[in-house]
């Protein structure tokens, strides 16, 4: 009885750790997105400051590709929107993951208690 409980407990613990990893992954991705968001905001502002006289280049790999100012601006704006959408998606994902992890945590605690009780009984029997 105690051994079965122990196995069960281990399985549950593994599941919980996996879930926690997912949570942390999504968290880091979200943070990255947030920095990108900030950067793109700066780029947009800079582009607004520029006038048409100076050329705009985009770095694609080792190549600097000439870009139109207007195109650049549009691209940046699009990127900005994309980033925002990504952030929201990741947020919702994070919420779900957190809920699942909480549930799992409760389950784990109950299992732990049972296991301790079983152990206590075993000790008492012995």
């Amino acid at each position: 009885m105690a051994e079965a409980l122990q196995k069960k407990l281990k399985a549950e613990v593994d599941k919980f750790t996996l879930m926690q990893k997912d949570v942390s992954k999504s968290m880091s991705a979200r943070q990255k997105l947030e920095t990108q968001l900030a950067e793109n905001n700066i780029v947009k502002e800079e582009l607004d400051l520029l006038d048409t006289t100076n050329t705009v280049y985009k770095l694609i790999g080792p190549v600097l590709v000439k870009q139109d100012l207007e195109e650049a601006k549009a691209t940046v704006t699009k990127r900005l929107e994309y980033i925002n959408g990504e952030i929201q998606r990741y947020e919702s994902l994070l919420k779900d993951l957190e809920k699942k992890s909480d549930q799992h945590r409760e389950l784990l605690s109950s299992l732990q208690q049972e296991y301790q009780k079983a152990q206590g009984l075993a000790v008492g029997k012995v």
Partner: protein
Amino acid sequence: MAAKGKMNVEHLGGVARLREEHQKVVKDCESRILHWDFTSLRLYRCVQLDPLRRDKVQCSSPPRKQFTGSRKKVSGDYEALTERLQTLPDQLSYDIMVPFGPLAFMPGKLVHTNEVTALLGDNWFAKCSTKQAQKIVDHRMKYVKSEISDLSKTMKNFEARVGLVRDLESISSSKGDYVDIREDTENTGDIAVTKGKQRIAHKPNSKPKLDAVLDLKEEDEEKEGSRKCTTTEEELWARLDELEKQEELQDDHDRLSYNANMNGEDTSSLSSEEEKEGDAAPAVNGLAHSEAPPSSGRKADEEAAAAEEDDDEEEEGSCLPTIFFSHTIEPKKVRINTGKNTMLKFSERKEQKEHSKRKNKNGHSNGHSHHELHKITTPVDIYRLFVDVKNGEPVPRKSILKSRSRENSVCSDTSESSAADFEEGRRAVGRSFSHDETTQSDTSDGVTEEESPTAVPLHRASRFEAFSGTVVEKEPMPSAVPYLTISPPALPTILERKQEEVAPDVAPPQQAPKRLSKFKAARLQQN
């Protein structure tokens, strides 16, 4: 305490963890600030060291690194950049050593000094003049500075938190000078609870209102009950014991009065008192009851005024007269301990109150004389106390107002207040005593006079009120104690003598032979 200790340990662990977390945040903030701001490196290094002393300092403060250092601070970089941009367009071209790979340099020229390709962010570049670049740089500087300020704010907040947590840690571990003040509300709660309980408990103890006699006692009990509400349980139990003793007292009195009862009036009160007896704790009163029956036979002679006396005792209220009984073959000696005064005064005072109410018939042996002496229910009793000791026997006096009587009196307590009583009782008692005295001197008169008092009881109910005095029996004839009663003291001695002389003329023929023999025997013995 174990639970408290455990809580402390857990709390301590939690607090330590909290502290560590706070310190991590502080560290992060500081590192970021350092990343952004080069000029404040020295300052932050100092700050870094002090609060993080306890913690494992991950970002150990590096030695001071200026521009040549590996770590270039952003703000410093930007400042350097601004300088460069300003100086760059001064010349059309510059001769420089161009870096050629990681290890080589080549001499070359720097042309188009005014054209700068600036990184806008996110792999976007813009070609612009130096002035425009300058603008960009300024713009970025602003952003960096705002970042630094935010970071410093958060760092300060977390530093404060760290300080608080540290203090909390010291408190919980009871290392510091902080003392936790706690008040246990359990006691008060219990007292509050027991207060209610006490109130409830008193109600069943209080006697039902059966009689005026009982009402008085109830008042006392209720008073005591209200008093008890403010005391603890132990005091309550002690108080209950006292009350039980009082009940014992009461019960004994009731028993005595019940036994001696000849009146319908008394029966009502006594029956109620009997009921009261039943209500009282049987265990406590068992002893009193056991005492009462053996004494009842002897106390049968006692005045029914004992019941009245109980009333008196109850009326007193504050003092608790207790009567102690002792099992002895000798006639019982009753001691009344009053809280206020001596026994005499107490009974005298009560006599004044109950003077008119008492009815009674008494017979006393010498054995009871001592008892009677101490139990004053009638003015007659006072005279009993004022006795001369002749031949080892107490001899009643003619007058107790005389100084001689007071000097040699057996009675220990004399007060002027009792003088009134004496005057009242003197007439009544004086008669009896005078009767007695005359018996000694004049046998014939004594016979008639002795007869008269015995005859008086027959007419007592018809002629006079309830009051009747008692006469001390001087002689050792306990079994032959006749009932001597004296009529109320309205008449002078001589007149009463005449009356009594008249009365016995009517009464004696029936009882004459027996009475005569008894009194004669007594008289003879006296002589």
